[in-house]
């Protein structure tokens, strides 16, 4: 009886405490770091044109070419937010999970195989006019993907950031604009 009482108290205290410390923001979470500049250079290209609307229209066209659907846009701010949903099923992973489930159920326990099922990829694109020594228009993009399991829970959330992805997008944009992309 005594043990159950102490356990109950411990549980309550833990629940209250965990509600207090959940999701604390640390000071470094909103701080510019040396990596911020490197990231900016990775994510941005400058085009030798003063026409922001032309670049925005071409960006929108490229997004459609690569299968994205526009979710939000604000032309006056040069912002386009788009996403696309694709399968995230990896045959090897599914096979492994099923084999594991069979083994587990053979040993007499309940099996509940989980694998990645679908993913949503989002892109945030901002077009900004540059008023420096030479006129130009900068395009900055960020990619992100969220992977859902066959149970509907989130398996991964990641900002996509390999140089190859950015280079590929900007190559397509360059082609659409008939202009060369310059790095920041």
């Amino acid at each position, binding site marked *: *009886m005594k043990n159950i009482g102490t356990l109950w108290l411990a549980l309550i205290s833990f629940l209250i405490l965990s509600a207090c410390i959940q999701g604390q923001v640390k000071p470094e979470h909103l701080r510019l770091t040396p990596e911020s500049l490197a990231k900016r250079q990775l994510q941005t290209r400058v085009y030798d044109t003063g026409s922001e609307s032309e670049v925005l229209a071409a960006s929108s066209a490229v997004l459609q070419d690569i299968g994205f659907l526009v979710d*939000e846009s604000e032309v006056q701010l040069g912002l386009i937010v788009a996403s696309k949903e694709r399968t995230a099923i990896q045959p090897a992973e599914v096979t492994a999970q099923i084999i594991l489930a069979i083994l587990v159920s053979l040993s007499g326990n309940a099996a509940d195989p989980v694998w990645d099922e679908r993913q949503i990829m989002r892109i*945030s694109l901002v077009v900004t006019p540059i008023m420096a020594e030479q006129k130009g228009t900068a395009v900055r993009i960020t990619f992100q993907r969220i992977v859902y399991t066959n149970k509907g829970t989130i398996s991964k959330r990641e900002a996509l950031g390999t140089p190859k992805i950015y280079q590929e997008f900007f190559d397509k944009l360059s082609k659409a604009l008939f202009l060369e992309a310059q790095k920041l």
Partner: protein
Amino acid sequence: MKKNLRKALIYWVFGFLLLLTACVSTQKRLLDSDTSQLQLRSIQTRTFDTTNQEKTLRTVMATLQDLGFMLDAGEVGLGTVSGIKWVNIHPMRITVSVRPRGETQMLVRANCQIERKPVQDPLPYQRFFAALSKALFLEAQQVE
């Protein structure tokens, strides 16, 4: 047996009472009335000596991107921009609004939320405004 039963009952009642005090009503959550509104507003707000709302908004967007946020909404009419970023497994959302204040200034307010709670620590907001100030080449002023 009776003594043990009474002890168990005391534990259960005590635990239940503790749980009750930890509950927060829905109304409180809707209106955030358990935080000091005025105090939070002053932490989240600065003014800048500029009248160019669009330029300020665009600079906010660039600053948010530099801070690792992915922008997911923007509206010139309302003068707002929103973004999201993942801090480990917690989603951090931010909405920044830019509005004219008087004839000579812009009022910038940043609402930041992590998981399902508003961020009340002044330090992250100070850092955001420091970064924005640098990008605008203007000083961030506290609202009196």
